Every structure is written in C-alpha cells, then in structure tokens.
C-alpha cells in the first residue's frame, strides 16, 4: 500500500530479574505505514505500552531492548544514542499519553510546553513560536488559542489537555504519532471527539499512527490495521475488519466475545416487584475547596427521585461528575444528603444515627470499583468476609466458616481465606468484594462501577457472576456504570444521569431503541465502535 514509516523487526524487550516473565515483549513484528492507524491492542500487562515506548527509547530504567530492530527512516532506532534519539523525538516522531494531566508539566503554561518542541527542533524566534503555538492550538479545535496558550494544565478540562498534547505531538508534523491509550482517562463523549480529532489530523497530514488501546470499540472506530498482543507476544494481526469480524486466534476470539455488545440481550420479562429502595428528592452539594469559595458549591445531586424494585437491576449511567456514584452512596447512607429522603422497605433511613442504622445496613450492601482499594490490605480474606456478620452479632467461628462457603459461591477456592488481599488478582479481589457483600445476606446490592477497573475478559466473568448470584439469591441491584454497553448487558432498567439529575429513565430496551433525551442520544453516539458493536454476531461463544 503506502510507504512504510517504521518497522518493528522481531523486537524483544527484556524485563529486569524478578519480574513475572523474562521479556515484556518478545519477537514483535509490526509495520507502520504512512496514513494508516495501527492499533496495538492487549489487556493490561500485555506489553503494548512498553513496545510503544521502546520506539522512542523511553523505556523505564532497567527495561531494555534485548533483541530485534526498529527501522525508521533508514535507521535502526535501537542503535541510536539518547542524543541522536532526542533529535528524532518530537520532530519526526510525536507521542501522546494516557493521562494528559500528569503528562504535562504542572508548572509551565501550555504555550510554553508546546513552544518548547519548536525551540528544541527549529530556529524559530520567540514571536514566531508564539504564533505557531496558537495556530497549532487552533488546529486541534481549541477555542481562544491565545488564552489556552497562557493557561496552565490544571486550568483546562481533560479533553482540552489531551488536545493540547496532540498539538504538541503534531507541532512539527511528524511522520509517526504514537498514541498510548490517549482516551482511556476520558469520558466517552470526550473520547469520541478526541478519536475524531486524531483521525482527522492523521488523514490531513498522512501521518502514521501507532495507537495503543485495550478497547475493541476504539479499534473499530479508528484502526486500519490491528495487532493483538498477549503476554508480550503478538497472536494475531491484520486489517481491522479481518481481525474484528473473522478472528483466527482463540485468544482474539475470546477477547472479542467478552466485549459487551451494544445490544439488549433477550431476557424473560418479569413482573415488576415492590419498591425496595427509593430516593425522593435527594439533594447534595459539595462546598468547593478553599476557604473563600463562596457560592461555588457543586451540586452533585439535584433532587433525584428514583425507585429500585424488588428483583430488578437498575442501571445508573452517566459520565464522570454526573452524580451517579454520589446517588449510589447516598442511597446506601454512606453519604449524608442535604435534603430529601432515602426509603428502605417503606422506612425512611435518612436521619438514622450510625447505631440506629446498623440493622438496616445488612439489607443493603455495596460493591466497589477499585479492587485494590476496597479491601483492607491488613486483613485476611476470611476476616474481610466475616467482618459484617461479626459486626451484626454472628459467632466469629461460624462467620468464618461461612466465609469459606461464600468464597466457593463467588468462584474462589476456600483456601483463599487465610491469605491477604495483595495475593490476588483484580478479578479475584472483586469476587472477594462480592463475597463480603453477600455475607450479610442483603436484599439490595449496590455495585459502583464494579467492572470498570478490570480487563475486558475478567469484566465479562464478573458480570456473569453478578447476574448469576442476583438470580440465585433473588437480589435487587443498583448498578452504577459509565459504560452503556455494560449497562445494557446487565440492567433491566436504566437511569441516565447528567449534572446530578436523572434525564431519562426507562427499560433497557426502551433506552436502547428509542432514546429520547439528547444527552442519551449523544452517549449512544459516543460509544466507541458503536456501529461495529451492533453489527457483530452475538455468537463467538
């Protein structure tokens, strides 16, 4: 097809002794062409980011390229000194990162940081540089480029920061752009915009792009070529449609199967049960930080009315800051609300003291997002799970015995009981979290983004487990997620939240097939790989 810009030839990246495997990446072959987006996709630990960083010689200390070559512009980048590499970086190869907040120097203005690229690689004077920076900022569709140039990173939104990063990476019109999960930290709607921007600029300039991601939806949206990486080895590569629609390797197949589809699975329609948990007009605002920030309080909940019926799963969907987590915590009384009522089984629990609340606690249990933060690192698993029953008066020995049963229930070996949280993987920890919640035999399970920190394959397993348990135990579940695909998979009804209010509430099918609110529509439009998602066959299992 077009010109080859960069070739990875049997690239092997060694890890320091004591790592879980010898090579982060072994024998990777990849060809990047001008005007093409090549997606390197893999789960966490697959070595995809290190492969990208190796190109620019930006590997962390003690991680080194131990074999193979990186051919760029007739040179083998692995043989260049740091000094020689520095001349290429930023000039002929640009790079953007996952977290634009930390990737930008917090103490320098945006203009200065972009201008720095120009100062390093060109002979432009200060005025010329300033003009060029503003032009670049305008190119990435940032409003008021001169103001943005004077701003500091913390004064911009996440999307604006990533745009500025892109402007910086493309400042000198490089032949290759390396994008290391550039949209992972962003909300879906912002992600869609950034993806469009990269696509647009790349088409305009004919840049070759190496795009690192873990999301097949993103791949579907942006990739020309796809390479799938597992444990440092490439298991499959090829044109996008070939890989997505006709995967050859079992791993690719399994990954694709795990991707939640943008579709509502067929599930038996049940009669709506009684209301178990209800929020009436819940309001909550957070005072802004700082002592003198008068009237700058953020309204996290703005009079929310919502009802959870017995036996159903209600999804709360929204982007960050929409108030969905706040609502979940308010409804479990982990957070006090300013006004309104929280009603459990017809009783108001809004004003109860910690002590008075205790009997109600066991009826509502929560599952948290971060499997690393949600378990006390100093507690054995058995104590984690038995803590609830013990608090509620169970005989400790019995509670511990039951903890082992629960471990079996969530698919873990009972021998796990004596170990500490750090000995488990993310998915396993999330199972432990579920076991802890179940230990109190609750009526309502509140799951706050329970799968968003997990790899896609693990995510599917945990979702299955939740659905399974819910069905088995006849629970009601409040399910908080930012991912519409996940919500459609698991929820009976979905509430879409924006700015602390529910903008649309309906059955999953209704929301999916006939969204009414513009924001709901926008969310659907922004789902990565939306069109592909709908088209793939439900098979692959």
């Amino acid at each position, binding site marked *: 097809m077009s010109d080859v810009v960069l070739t990875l030839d049997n690239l092997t990246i060694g890890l320091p002794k004591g790592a879980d495997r010898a090579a982060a990446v072994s024998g990777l072959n990849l060809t990047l062409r001008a005007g093409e987006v090549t997606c390197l996709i893999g789960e966490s630990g697959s070595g995809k980011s290190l492969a990208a960083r190796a190109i620019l010689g930006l590997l962390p200390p003690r991680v080194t390229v131990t074999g193979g070559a990186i051919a760029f512009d007739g040179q083998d980048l692995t043989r260049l000194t740091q000094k020689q590499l520095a001349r290429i970086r930023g000039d002929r190869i640009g790079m953007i990162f996952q977290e634009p907040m930390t990737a930008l120097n917090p103490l320098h203005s945006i203009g200065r940081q972009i201008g720095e690229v120009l100062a390093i690689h060109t002979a432009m004077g200060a005025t010329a540089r300033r003009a060029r920076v503003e032009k670049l900022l305008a190119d990435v569709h940032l409003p008021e480029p001169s103001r943005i140039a004077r701003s500091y990173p913390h004064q911009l939104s996440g999307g604006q920061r990533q745009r500025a990063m892109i402007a910086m990476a493309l400042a000198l019109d490089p032949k290759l752009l390396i994008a290391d999960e550039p949209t992972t930290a962003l909300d879906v709607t912002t992600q869609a915009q950034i993806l469009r921007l990269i696509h647009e600029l790349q088409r305009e300039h004919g840049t070759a792009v190496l795009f690192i991601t873990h999301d097949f939806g993103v791949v579907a949206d942006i990739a020309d070529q796809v390479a799938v990486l597992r444990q440092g080895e490439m298991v499959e590569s090829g044109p996008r449609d070939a890989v997505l629609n006709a995967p050859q390797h079992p791993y690719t197949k399994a990954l694709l199967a795990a991707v939640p589809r943008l579709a509502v699975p067929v599930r038996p329609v049940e009669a709506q049960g009684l209301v178990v948990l209800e929020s009436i007009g819940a309001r909550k605002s957070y005072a802004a930080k700082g002592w003198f920030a008068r009237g700058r309080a953020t309204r996290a909940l703005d009079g929310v009315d919502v009802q959870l019926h017995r036996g159903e799963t209600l999804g709360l969907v929204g982007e960050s800051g929409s108030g969905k987590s706040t609502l979940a915590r308010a409804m479990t009384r982990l957070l006090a609300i300013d006004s309104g009522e929280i009603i459990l089984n017809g009783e108001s629990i809004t004003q109860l003291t910690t002590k008075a609340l205790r009997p109600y606690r066991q009826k509502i249990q929560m599952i*948290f997002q971060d499997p690393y933060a949600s378990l006390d690192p100093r507690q054995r698993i058995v104590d984690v799970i038995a803590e*609830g029953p013990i608090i509620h008066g169970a005989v400790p020995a019995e509670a511990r015995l039951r903890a082992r049963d629960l471990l079996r229930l969530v698919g873990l070996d009972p021998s796990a009981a004596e170990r500490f949280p750090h000995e488990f993987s993310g998915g396993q920890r999330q199972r432990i979290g579920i076991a802890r919640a179940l230990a109190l035999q609750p009526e309502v399970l509140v799951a706050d983004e329970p799968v968003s920190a997990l790899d896609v394959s693990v995510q599917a397993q945990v979702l299955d487990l939740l659905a399974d348990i819910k069905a088995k135990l006849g629970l009601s579940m409040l399910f908080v997620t930012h991912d519409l695909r996940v919500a459609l998979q698991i929820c009976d009804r979905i509430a879409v939240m924006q700015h602390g209010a529910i903008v649309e509430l309906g059955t999953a099918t209704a929301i999916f097939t006939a969204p009414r609110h513009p924001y709901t529509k926008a969310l659907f439009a922004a789902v990565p790989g939306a069109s592909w998602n709908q088209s793939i066959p439900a098979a692959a299992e």
Partner: protein
Amino acid sequence: MGAGLKRFARNRMALLGACVILIVVALTIMAPFLFPAGAFALVGPALQPPSARFWLGTDALGRDVAAGVAEGARTSLLIGMSAAMGAVVLGAVIGGLAGYCRGAVDIVLMRITEFFQTIPAFLLAMLLVVILSPSVLSVIIAITAVSWPGIARLVRGEFVALGGREFILASAGLGASGPRLVFVHLLPNCLSSIIAVGSLLVATAILLETGLAFLGLGDPNVMSWGLQISAGRVSLRAAWWVCTFPGIAILLTVLSINLVGDGLNEALNPRLRER
C-alpha cells in the same frame, strides 16, 4: 508487615544502625555490672586521659567517663523513647480525632497543631523545662509537647486519605462502628508510617534532650550524655575526652536511629515502596 521486615533486613545501612542500637541497649543493660559504683562515683583522679584503667578517661571530678556513657545511654534512650512515644500517642489522638471527625473538629485541631508548629519549638521546650523545673519527667514532657504536631499531621493526613479509600466505606457499609473503623482499619493501616516517623522522632528527641542539657536544663540527679557534655564543655580543650565520647555516643545513636528509621520508612511505607 512481615514482608516489610524482610525488606528492612535487605537494607544494609539500616541493619548496621540496628546493630549499633542493639549495642547501645546492651550497654544500658550491662552498665550496672560493668560499673557497679554508678556514673556519679568518684573513682579516680580528675581529668585522666583514656587509659587501661579508664578506657574513656575521667572527668573533672574523677568520675569514669565510660560509666557515664553507659549510664547516659539509658537516660538518653529513656527520654528519647518516652518523649517519642508520648508525642506519637498525643499526635495520634489529636490527628486521629481531626482526621476521623473532620469538619469543625478538624479545623480547630489543625489550627492548634499549626499553632504549635509555628511556635519556635526549642524555645517552648526550654520554657516548659524551666516552668516544671528540670527533671527527667519535665524534659520528657517538654520534648513531647513540641514533637507531637508532626505526628498529628501525619495521622490526620493518613486518616483523611484512608477515609476516602473504599475499604473504609465498605466497612462502614457493613455497619462498623466508629471505634471499629479507627482501631481495626484506620490505625493498623497507618501504623507503619507512624512507626517509621516515630522512630525518627526518637533521634530528634535525643538531640533536643542534649540541647536542653547543654544549656543546663537537664535532670541533675541522672547521668545523661547531655549532662556529660555540658559538664565536660568547660574542660573541652584541656580534656577533650570528657565531652568527645558522649558526643560520639550521641552522634552514633542518633545516626543509627535515623538509619533504622529510614530503613523502616522504606520498608513499611507503601507510598515510598511504590516508587
């Protein structure tokens, strides 16, 4: 914690420090046997240079400097550890209250803490020792009184950080009571930071104690390195050994405690470890 100790054991400097501290501790235990007459006993001629009979020489009254160093180790360690312990307890209570209760309690307690950090610590310690009249107890109280704010801020910071962690929320969601949250979850989780910082505090306390004693604010009935130096100071140049050896003792002890404290910090402090 076990893994932390293993990490600690791999730190050679910290192990070296621990060895020195063990030697100092052994010295305090053996002092009554090595020097049965006590450190104040007039055992020989005044200002004898180090010799076979008096390893570290004698001071202006003919007391054995070695006996003083051995007995002083006990005092310095006693004062250092008690003051550090006091500061840790006081700081943990205040910082814990502030970090757990938040809100107005937090603001008031942290203002008080800042306030105590602003007052020149050494001047305050001097003042307290004079008000309470010099004794081991008053020196401990004075050092405690100026050392707690750091711990308070540390504990508060940890409590606030941990309070936002999901496992605390999870426990609260299980219906855990306040004391349970504090003693089962919050405190054990910041214990390693407290131990690390607390151990460094022992070193600071010993330095403070010697500083106070240098200015004549030590307990006159108890031998301590500070007292030895302040007594030997007048004859520093006629008899260098009188305050040289206690000085070296201070230096080594404080250095060792710092090494151990740093080692503990690196081994136990998860945030440092992640780096």
